[in-house]
């Protein structure tokens, strides 16, 4: 199944099923240029800010670091480095709460800023470098998908597969958030330059720049610079949530779906976020690692909503204070947007690579939570599900812990967009149930694979011991045969012959040797065996 190139080239836009139109409320934050934030005094740098393992530490407490200096190294299993966002001293390396829905703690490097903001020497790269060198440069720059998933960009590029299109995602469909919108308005050229680099590395000959029709200024900004980049074209999609989801955007732009559990590259596509493209330009052309990003601060309870260039590691409290945060009773602080964001219990957590928005709504701004009522099977949820699932069915199965049923109903194709819970008239927190069920299923799978590995090991060891025992027995049998043969020979040849005596002696010695060897074997076998297969 290949994508319809001709139609795509004609600029056709397809559609995807379901979706919702929640109030946008982007004007709250998108009317002012991106502002810079005064430096915080302390920065918290979690080693894991991306999808993958944390990188290995390169600094220790007491070290002085420069802005842009790596504090951890890239490594196996998608480990990405983290860089100091400003100059200063490492004052602690400890477990601290990080920005994660679970509120769990993780290893964090604490940097006390010296206020000088001294930068390390940047190391730009040229596009004439080898492909693997460029990919490595992006890895060294610590770039992860800035759209939200945080998948290492280098890793995505390293997959060597023939590509038709690189898609640059500037859709930003979630209400309130305008970080990408502002970035596109102000840095359209840089974004397209980053796109050019991404095309060069990935081998995609064409690129589609996609954004929603609610961002006319960003569209104009692109239109002004696009003539410089003939291989790229603009695609404006209708405003609908969640058209910025990777799968939905691919369906909008190509009319095709990414196979379940597959990758966009399976159908010749690669997608990166506009913020990522900008960071790629910074890393390659200017040699600057990823140490800052645009974050939208919005909601009725900040007096200066807008977008900020925020050094990564800046405590949320610092950013909010600067934006004029006035908390109220039972204040929600949401990292991310109103549809997919998660609430923070602690404002000392830092802004990280995947933080695109902080939303501090007033009490009446987002509908106050209501009691969960029984499902009336109205089907509203199924109508809006972009993944074409049956949310109410999933909900019943999840409540019944019917994991087989959930798998049959393709729970894992749920993108957790929240459209179903948004429309549910019974106010059922559907996504919450799905997340819980997914976590439980993953846990069971992990347990199972653990016990599977243990069982395999056990079986392998049993087989090895059995094999060794058989070999041993075989050697014993051979030795015993040799002994018998020797004795028999001695008896057959009769005693009187002096040669016979010699022969007999030789035979006896042979037999003894064989017996000794066997005994040694036995002794060896009795020694404890090492367990590793």
């Amino acid at each position, binding site marked *: 199944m290949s994508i319809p190139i001709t139609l795509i080239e004609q600029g056709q836009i397809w559609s995807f099923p379901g979706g919702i139109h929640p109030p946008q409320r982007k004007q709250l934050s998108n009317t002012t240029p991106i502002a810079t934030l005064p430096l915080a005094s302390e920065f918290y740098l979690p080693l894991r800010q991306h999808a993958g393992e944390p990188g290995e530490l390169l600094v220790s407490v007491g070290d002085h670091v420069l802005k842009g200096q790596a504090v951890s190294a890239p490594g196996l299993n998608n480990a990405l480095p983290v860089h100091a966002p400003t100059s200063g001293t490492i004052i602690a390396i400890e477990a601290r709460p990080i920005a994660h829905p679970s509120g769990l703690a993780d290893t964090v490097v604490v940097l006390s800023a010296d206020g000088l903001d001294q930068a390390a020497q940047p190391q730009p790269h040229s596009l004439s470098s080898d492909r693997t060198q460029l990919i490595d440069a992006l890895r060294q720059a610590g770039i992860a998908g800035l759209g939200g998933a945080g998948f290492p960009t280098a890793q995505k590029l390293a997959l060597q597969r023939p590509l038709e299109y690189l898609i640059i995602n500037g859709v930003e469909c979630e209400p309130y958030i305008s970080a990408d919108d502002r970035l596109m308005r102000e840095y359209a050229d840089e974004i397209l330059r980053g796109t050019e680099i991404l095309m060069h590395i990935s081998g995609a000959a064409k690129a589609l720049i996609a954004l929603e029709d609610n961002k006319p200024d960003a569209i104009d900004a692109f239109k002004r610079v696009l003539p410089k980049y003939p291989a790229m074209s603009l695609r404006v999609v209708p405003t609908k949530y969640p058209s910025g989801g990777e799968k939905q955007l691919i369906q909008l732009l190509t009319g095709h779906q990414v196979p379940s559990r597959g990758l966009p590259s399976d159908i010749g596509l690669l997608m990166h976020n506009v913020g990522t493209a900008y960071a790629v330009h910074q890393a390659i052309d200017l040699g600057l690692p990823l140490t800052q990003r645009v974050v939208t601060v919005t909601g009725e309870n900040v007096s200066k909503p807008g977008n900020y260039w925020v050094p990564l590691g800046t405590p949320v409290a610092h950013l909010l204070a600067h934006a004029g945060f006035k908390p109220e009773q039972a204040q929600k602080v949401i990292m991310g947007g109103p549809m997919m964001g998660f609430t923070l219990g602690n404002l000392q957590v830092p802004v990280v690579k995947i933080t695109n928005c902080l939303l501090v709504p007033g009490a009446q701004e987002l509908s106050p939570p209501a009691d969960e009522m029984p499902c009336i*099977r109205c*089907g509203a949820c*199924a109508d809006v599900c972009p993944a074409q699932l049956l949310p109410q069915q999933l909900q019943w199965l999840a409540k019944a812990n019917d994991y087989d049923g959930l798998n049959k109903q393709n729970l894992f194709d749920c993108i957790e967009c929240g459209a179903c819970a948004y429309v549910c008239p019974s106010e059922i927190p559907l996504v919450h149930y799905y997340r819980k069920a997914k976590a439980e299923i993953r846990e069971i799978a992990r347990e199972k694979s653990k016990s599977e590995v243990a069982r395999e090991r056990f079986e392998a060891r049993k087989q090895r011991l059995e094999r060794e025992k058989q070999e041993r027995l075989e050697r014993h049998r051979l030795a015993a045969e040799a002994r018998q043969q020797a004795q028999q020979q001695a008896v057959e040849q009769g005693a009187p012959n002096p040669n016979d005596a010699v022969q007999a002696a030789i035979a006896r010695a042979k037999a003894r040797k064989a017996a000794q060897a066997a005994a040694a074997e036995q002794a060896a076998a009795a020694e404890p065996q090492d367990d590793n297969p």
Partner: protein
Amino acid sequence: MSFKIAASPHAHQRRTTQQVMRWVYMALIPGLLVQSYFFGLGVWVQMLLALGTAWLSEAACMALRGRSVSQAWQDHTAVVTALLLAISIPSLAPWWIIVIGTAFSVIVVKHVYGGVGQNLFNPAMAGYVLLLISFPVQMTAWPVPQELALYSISLSDTAQLIFTGFSNAGYNLEQLRLGIDGVTMATPLDSLRTDLAQALTVSEATNKAMFSSALGGIGWAWLNLAFLLGGLVLIKVRVISWHIPAGMLLGLLVPALFMSWFYPDQSVGPLLHALSGATMLGAFFIATDPVTAATSNRGRLYFGLLIGLLVFIIRTWGGYPDAVAFAVLLANMVVPVIDKYTQPIAYGHGGKL
């Protein structure tokens, strides 16, 4: 200071079940007005009786099941059940008819199956069928449309009739149902099937006073148009989707069209089907009950088609004059099968757009 922890999404469409239900009540109003105009105010008395019974039954069930009784007040499904049943039965039926029907709908059809969202059968229609089978005489005794009636019936007559069986002047229901021609009036559908069974042609059968001014019979045509109007409003404000009503009307009207092409003298014809009996009430208000309908849009279309087809079959060849209740219950039984075969193909599983 501690901050509130909550699961996403944090935004929510401000349309709760209550609001949905309010739209449903409002959409019923045109039909109720027309019904009051042609068939008297009995329907309002029936609705009051039904609501009272439904609330009491609901509260009793919630209490028995150890749930909070106050939740029952919030749940509007019992209200809708009661209203639909009250509208469906003949408006001068004795009081105990609606009480038995509503109590059965709420207690047995809904709560015995596990309460809101769990019932397999449409409660109002299950109640209706129980009544129709148990009390066929009372359940087919529709009052005569007022412009055709020999006697006119006042509000106090209505209440008297429902509670005692006799009007103020001492007439009983059977006497009041005499038409201007002095013959007991059947409903148009009823009369048609009797006549067709007696080998009259349609033109002969419809050559009666009840058909004089409107297709579908006086009163009934207007009643159906009023419910159609309410139903279209519900589709417009997206309280119901078009799939079930469209399916049901297609399933009923297409076969009716064919029949009237091939047997013009013995068949009822699509317009009469559309505008008589409980067609529109059924298509827009009854079959669309979300709990007992199919789940996906495609499934809902099939579900509607099936109901329409069943209505057509039962009306044409079956033993009962109208068939919406039976058709809906039969289709309810098929819902699991429909759901199984119409499950939408999830994203990335090889479906077409």
